[in-house]
């Protein structure tokens, strides 16, 4: 017993030493999704060292965590999340375990990008009958809205300035430059978007809702009967029947949901399956937020033009 107490004492001393951050000139930033990470890198430049918890190919509702993430969050100067409960499956628990007072909600190092964004699909009542991945605060996938990048960038800028006011001028310059690139890209997107208006698509999950609504694309149906609830044979049968009857031929899927249910619909409804990125890095060529949106616009536009 005495030896164990001695060991615990020694480890305690080591912990207190190990917990102290070194004199690192870079801000340590943890972003929950790669879209945020890309925008933080764009605005923060050489002043930030950014870690993304999720990878672009993952289902954001089921992200497997790695030990290095716990340490990254423990050491972070800034933590940036999408919000609207998108990361509810792992962020609250991770923040609690990481024990970093600088990035707790309400502290300067905590950024919630959903603040100031007007969500839609906010449920009128909260019931578990609404689905597994029910979004109680509204649809959180606004990273796929063409206006989403600018909104996230504004929140990132606020956070960076809060925790590192000395480099504000550089952050603002990078932010302005990023908005300029978005404006340029938006012209390309608008042109593609006009051709998509009024078309109908089927999706697997509700991730693309902002994108579709922005361009007036009708969401004809989803493979999931409710968010997070996998397709049932009955639901698929009804969907295929409606698609066939009404000649809807395009199914949009993200990398994580491109599964046998999607291929079943492809076969039975003679549909075109389009795997689109839903986060940065989700498909080849989608290595930044703007590139991801380029790929998304081009993929959907091409499919709808062909379909």
């Amino acid at each position, binding site marked *: *017993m005495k030896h*164990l*107490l001695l060991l*615990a004492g020694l*480890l*305690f001393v*080591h*912990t*207190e030493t*190990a*917990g102290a951050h070194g004199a690192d000139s870079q801000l340590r930033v943890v972003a929950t999704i790669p879209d945020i990470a890309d925008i933080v890198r764009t605005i923060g430049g050489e002043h930030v060292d950014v870690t993304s918890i*999720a*990878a672009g*190919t*993952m*289902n954001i*509702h*089921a*992200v*497997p*965590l*790695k*030990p*290095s993430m*716990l*340490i*990254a969050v*423990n*050491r972070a100067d800034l933590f940036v999340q999408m919000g609207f*409960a998108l990361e*509810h*499956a*792992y962020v*609250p*628990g*991770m923040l*609690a*375990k*990481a*024990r970093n007072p600088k990035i707790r909600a309400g502290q300067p190092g905590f950024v919630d990008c959903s603040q100031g964004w007007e969500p839609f699909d906010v449920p009128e009542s*909260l*019931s*578990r009958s609404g689905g*597994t*991945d*029910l979004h*109680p605060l509204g649809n959180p996938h606004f990273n796929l809205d063409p206006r989403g990048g600018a909104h996230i960038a504004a929140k990132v800028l606020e956070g960076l300035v809060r925790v590192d006011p000395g480099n504000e001028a550089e952050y603002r310059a990078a932010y302005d430059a990023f908005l300029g690139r978005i404006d340029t890209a938006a012209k390309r997107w608008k042109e593609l978007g006009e051709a998509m208006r009024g078309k109908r698509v089927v999706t697997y999950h509700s991730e693309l809702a902002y994108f579709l609504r922005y361009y007036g694309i009708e969401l004809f149906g989803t493979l999931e009967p409710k968010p*997070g*609830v*996998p397709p*049932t044979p009955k639901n698929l049968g009804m969907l295929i029947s409606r698609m066939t009857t009404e000649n809807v031929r395009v199914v949009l899927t993200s*990398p*994580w949901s491109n*599964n046998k249910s999607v291929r079943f619909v492809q076969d039975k409804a003679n549909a075109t399956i389009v795997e689109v990125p839903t986060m940065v890095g989700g498909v080849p060529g989608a290595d930044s937020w703007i590139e991801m949106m380029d790929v998304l616009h081009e993929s959907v536009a091409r499919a709808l033009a062909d379909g």
Partner: protein
Amino acid sequence: MLLPSVPVLRVARTTLGALVVGGAALAQGPAFDSPGLSKPPRAGDGFTLSNDFNPAIGVVIDAFADGIATDGADDGFDAELRVLELNFSAHIDPEAWAYVVLASENGENPRLDEAAVEYTGMGGNQVLKVGRFFVDFGKQMQNHLEGLRTLERPLPLREFLGEELAGTGVQYDNWFAAGDATPVRFSIGAFASLLGEGHEHDDGGTPEPAGVVPDRKDIDELSFVARITAMTDAGERGLAQLGASVRHVPAFDFTFDDAGLAQRGLSNTVFGVDATWATSDATGLKRTLIGGEFLAIDGDIAGALDDPVTPTAIDVVDDSATGFFVFGDYAWDRYHSAGVQYAAADLTEDPSLDASELDLYYTHNLTEFRRLRFGVTVGEEGGVDSTRAYVQFTNYFGNHFHGLNW
């Protein structure tokens, strides 16, 4: 390897038939846990659906139906509401969080499983936990039965530590980073008693002495448990974890009140090492989990009456015994997973005898709060073969929190 007998095949057919009844689907990853802890996915989620009560209230129903065949003879079927659990949890203040777990087994009067406060106000990553709670030993003992990967707790844990190992006392917990990818956690706790509960064998109702810890004791007679564990990134999406645990009971008695018998001044120690490896595919949905634990118990490991009819003394087994279990689980999406576990252990009553269990199980998460599990356990204990097929149903209502740690 034991082969299923004819009644067993009947049981298995019934189970497979029930498989057809499957429905929809499950859910999210948990809060920050390491793989293998296996509390229900996202249970404890107080965020998606708000809980306006303070403290938050949760209920768990865990039931199963099973059929057992022993040495080729059909023992029949049974169904049990194994656990009805009621739990409460809340932050008391910014630096203290508390939870209470009441559980009723098979409709009996509820008992207090856990009632603990976690205090985090000491700075750093330190946590002080006070009260009655499941102790930090290995990766499976913190879990309540309904939260396990398998229907029952693995054989060597049951044999050496008991079905559940709750202690009343205090536990200090801390973690630190060894590099950029390896958190190391350790804990040490002192308890009034750490004699496990529910160590049972099919002994035909033979009376047994009870292990008890004296109510009043010197401070060096407190039981303690200690654990150290480290996990690290393994590949792009993998994790590897190693741990070592020890539980020491320095002073306890075997008593048999009906005959006024007692053996006093006994002690024993359980050591354990555990290893876990987990990985996932690029989507994070297909997951593989492999792990195992090795345990050894040493000291006064069991007691038995010299004569079950007219006992005159308690014979104490002063010996050592070992056991282990290994498992592999694979989840091919958020809704379906299957696994196999093999466990073997010496019997503490007679370490020259041993027991083994092979578990095959399939878990269908209907939603994040509803789970069906189908399994078959092929066992052998002291030369007696048995096979059990079961269907387990677990349902969580409301917020469900425990003091689990990685």
